């Protein structure tokens, strides 16, 4: 195996600038000179978390279906959202509410979706974005296709696609990256490595040292970043999007973070991971360090924090109120969006559903 000359090699670089205590461990990105933007990033992270906490509680009290918490992923999700342009296309998995909120998806939408109502996928501000994608990695080929469409039309837009650590084991992940590399598509893939695919840790998932290096085989530049550092996530993703927008081709960014919650509200993570590991991860979580950083710069204080919490709480309460007051859709809607026009053979079934639905009320 070791004889013969070296014909290929690779290195994966790691980037980070905010240490877990909010001090700097690397150079600040240029945008950090804008204090309002820094505050905005933090506000979005807190907003996602306040919403998330409420959503889990709603599920626990029987008012929401199974829900996948985003606890601990706020920096990655918000960093990505803030780096994108409105006209770009977003493909997510199912946890990235921080990104969706940044792009104008409403709390009500997310509640409706996890509350069992398709109307929650009606993203009014970014109608080109795809809804949550549950079958793992199946968003990847679609994202590559959207990027191909953008390339064919020569538009200055990009596609950003999320995938999890478990998703990188799927064929669809490799297939899509392979085409993105071969066709130099305007695609940026963010691998959210939160260390756990339900109960399976990355070490069981793959023997690769990093998930970023999986891009190397597709000829795509890749980097690993501290996914709990919103500044480095935003900076790295923005640079990758800019490169792709200018015809520079795809990138892969592995964001190292940690799933502080159970996989979903149906999961019990204590069955497969230690309390000590979770406690260690809590010490390096993203929101604490961003607040400490802002405070160290004189950009934040306890009053600002209290006001933000109040504001987020009110927004969440208003969304929950609206969600709980939203009547379920008519059974007609099961049929009406199957095709542009309902095939005649389905009319009888639609009538049947109407009839039995009416008997229930």
């Amino acid at each position, binding site marked *: 195996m070791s004889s013969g000359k070296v014909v290929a090699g690779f290195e994966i670089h790691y980037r980070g600038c905010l240490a877990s205590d909010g001090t700097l461990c690397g150079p600040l990105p240029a945008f950090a000179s804008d204090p309002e933007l820094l505050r905005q990033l933090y506000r979005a992270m807190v907003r996602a978390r306040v919403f998330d906490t409420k959503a889990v509680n709603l599920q626990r009290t029987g008012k929401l279906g199974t829900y996948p918490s985003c606890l601990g992923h706020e920096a990655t999700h918000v960093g990505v959202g803030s780096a994108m342009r409105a006209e770009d296309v977003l493909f997510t998995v199912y946890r990235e509410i921080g990104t969706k909120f940044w792009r104008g998806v409403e709390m009500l939408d997310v509640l409706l979706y996890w509350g069992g109502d398709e109307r929650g996928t009606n993203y009014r501000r970014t109608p080109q974005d795809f809804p949550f994608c549950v079958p793992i990695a199946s968003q990847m080929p679609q994202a590559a*296709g959207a990027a191909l469409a953008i390339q064919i039309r020569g538009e200055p837009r990009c596609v950003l696609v999320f995938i999890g650590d478990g998703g990188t084991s799927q064929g669809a992940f490799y*297939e899509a990256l*392979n085409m993105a590399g071969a*066709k130099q598509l305007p695609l940026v893939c963010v691998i959210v490595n939160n260390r756990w695919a339900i109960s399976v840790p990355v070490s069981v998932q793959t023997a690769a040292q990093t998930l970023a290096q999986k891009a190397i085989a597709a000829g795509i530049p890749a980097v690993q970043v501290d996914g709990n550092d919103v500044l480095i996530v935003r900076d790295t993703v923005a640079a990758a999007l800019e490169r792709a927008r200018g015809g520079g081709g795809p990138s892969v960014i592995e964001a190292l973070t940690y799933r502080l919650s159970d996989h979903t509200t149906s999961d019990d993570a204590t069955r497969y991971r230690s309390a000590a590991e979770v406690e260690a991860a809590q010490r390096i979580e993203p929101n604490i360090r961003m607040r400490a950083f802002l405070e160290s710069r004189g950009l934040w204080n306890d009053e600002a924090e209290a006001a933000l919490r109040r504001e987020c709480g009110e927004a969440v309460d208003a969304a929950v109120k609206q969600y709980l007051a939203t009547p379920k859709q008519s059974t007609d809607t099961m049929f009406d*969006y199957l095709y*542009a026009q309902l095939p005649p053979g389905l009319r009888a079934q639609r009538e049947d559903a109407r009839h039995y639905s009416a008997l229930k009320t």
Partner: protein
Amino acid sequence: MGKMTMVEAINMAHAWEMAQDPSVVVLGEDVGANGGVFRATAGLQQRFGKARVQDTPLAEGLIAGAAIGMAAEGLKPVAEIQFMGFIYPALDQIASHMARLRNRTRGRLTCPLVLRMPHGGGIHAPEHHSESLEALLCHHPGLRVVCPSSPARAYGLLLAAIREPDPVIFLEPVRLYRFARQEVDDDGRALPIGSCFVLRAGSDLTVVTWGAMTVDCLKAAEQMAAEGVSCEIIDLSTLAPIDFDTLLDSVVKTGRLLIVHEAVRTAGLGAEIAAIVAEQALYDLEAPIRRVTGYDTIMPLYRLEHDFIPGVARILDGIRATLAD
């Protein structure tokens, strides 16, 4: 325009629609310089350029998935899967996303695309190149599944498929690709999706079939006519959603139904047709519904393929048995 084969008609339909509609793009394995392994896309890349006729990496799931992303972004992809036996890796994209995108986004995102592929056997192809898997696709609401049976119908139905606002799976019977030449006008006129075609009117018995089996059924009807039996041959044409009105009208008229398909029998599309006719026209039937289909076996390698595919003899026996009941 002249006489042409089905594969030439398919090529001509691509060219017509690409010339009319700049959003139509072709993608698939070997569809570019090579023009597709059956030459369905021959010359399109030379004429319309590499941006609009894209050779993809060799990955069926990717092709189907990429077509979804392209369609949602406003293009009209016409994607080729090289053989239907290779559809399995694409099923996740087809079932989980293509068929559902309009519904799961309440109409916000749609999937106007065509996924074309050769269907069936009979051309001495290798293993996995001769499958008839339409039932897998017809089981997914949100898809339209179309299977033409002549060059002219292939031309008109492919145009209709590309113009559809929803995803269409377009099954091209390989045995008919170069089976016969037919006059086809290159006039851009689409044929209706969602309607059966009555290929031969008759009064004694209805034969429902599709794709390459239409040829054998027409031959059988010809022979039966010599014996004084009048068979009505219906080409189902759109396999999902099915035009049951035409079918039921015919069965009510003739009182007898034979279903002929190449695919395996169990849970095949014939079972659905039989069930609907039994539910809605049982008292109009004068004989039990019969099926003549591929056997419930693995599609054999090619030396036995014509023993698997129902031929005229089996169809004739099916007709005679149904008439005798």
